[in-house]
């Protein structure tokens, strides 16, 4: 019998590409964020409100990850920003190579902020580094306040939590205080914003904070 000792992260290859992407972002002075959530939490809606907020003030580029269809990219195309649609064909997460290979689409565009909308899934994308500066997890009030405890990996690996659909609070059984408490239990360093995409509450605060992170 012989033994080969390897002792390497299974995602080593992805991490390598993520490192290359990260170098590329730095070179282009581009802040890249990776937005993750369950399907329907409001990632694309938040992105739309962000594009309205930044309008001409910040040059934004978008990578849309979806399992099928380019519907989200069509929604974003209305805003006249460069957008790349990545269709994963069934894969439940984006990998770094998708992002790295998309970057040429932004050549010569002097993008300051790259927003990556990940595939709707609260589990799988947490393991995959895309080279982003940080992950932004979206949790909506309709999903329940216990989700941070049920999906800790996502909340641990994110730097920002956007609590979306707060306009629905009068109608849903969700306690925002305990949602925040649960999120901070998993990750006490989380920066938290409360948003509504319908009445744009909180959008300016979130975008204002993000603008300060630009490099």
């Amino acid at each position: 019998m012989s033994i080969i000792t390897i002792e390497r992260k299974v995602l080593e290859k992805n991490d390598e590409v993520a490192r290359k992407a990260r170098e590329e972002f730095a070179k282009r002075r581009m802040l890249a964020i990776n937005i993750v959530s369950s399907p329907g939490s409001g990632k694309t809606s938040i992105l739309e409100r962000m594009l309205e907020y930044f309008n001409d003030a910040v040059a934004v580029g978008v990578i849309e990850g979806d399992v099928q269809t380019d519907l989200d990219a069509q929604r974003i195309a209305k805003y006249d920003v460069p957008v790349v649609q990545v269709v994963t064909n069934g894969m439940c997460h984006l990998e770094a190579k998708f992002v790295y290979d998309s970057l040429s689409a932004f050549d010569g565009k002097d993008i300051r902020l790259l927003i990556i909308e990940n595939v709707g899934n609260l589990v799988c994308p947490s393991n995959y580094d895309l080279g982003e500066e940080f992950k932004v997890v979206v949790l909506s009030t309709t999903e329940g306040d216990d989700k941070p405890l049920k999906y800790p990996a996502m909340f641990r690996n994110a730097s920002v939590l956007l609590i979306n659909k707060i306009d629905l609070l009068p109608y849903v059984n969700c306690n925002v205080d305990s949602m925040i408490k649960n999120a901070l239990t998993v990750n006490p360093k989380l920066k938290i914003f409360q948003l509504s995409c319908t009445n744009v509450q909180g959008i300016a605060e979130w975008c204002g904070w993000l603008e300060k992170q630009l490099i």
Partner: protein
Amino acid sequence: MHEMSLAQDIVASVREHVGTERLRSVTKVRIEIGAASGVVSESLQFAFDAIIQNSSLSAATMESTIIPFVVHCYHCGKDSQNDGGYMLCSECDSSDVAIVSGAELILKQIELKEM
């Protein structure tokens, strides 16, 4: 389920490290699953078995060990374990912690029988 792509990555790594000629002699693939990695051991096992079926690796079995989630606390200096995957020191409640283990999926070892 990303366990399928993880299992594919594991199989690809095994092929890379062992080389095509020796694949048939692989008996065990040892991996470590972090308790807070978000990877479901049964799903990974299922995916691995499905991939190696009818391949030159079909004699191999995957052996996985769950590694507890441990953080080191910069406040009190202790290491502590929590099963939730929380960034909190169980000793003093400080959030000034770093992950020691239990958040990753690691390919540990490949065992081969001599031919």
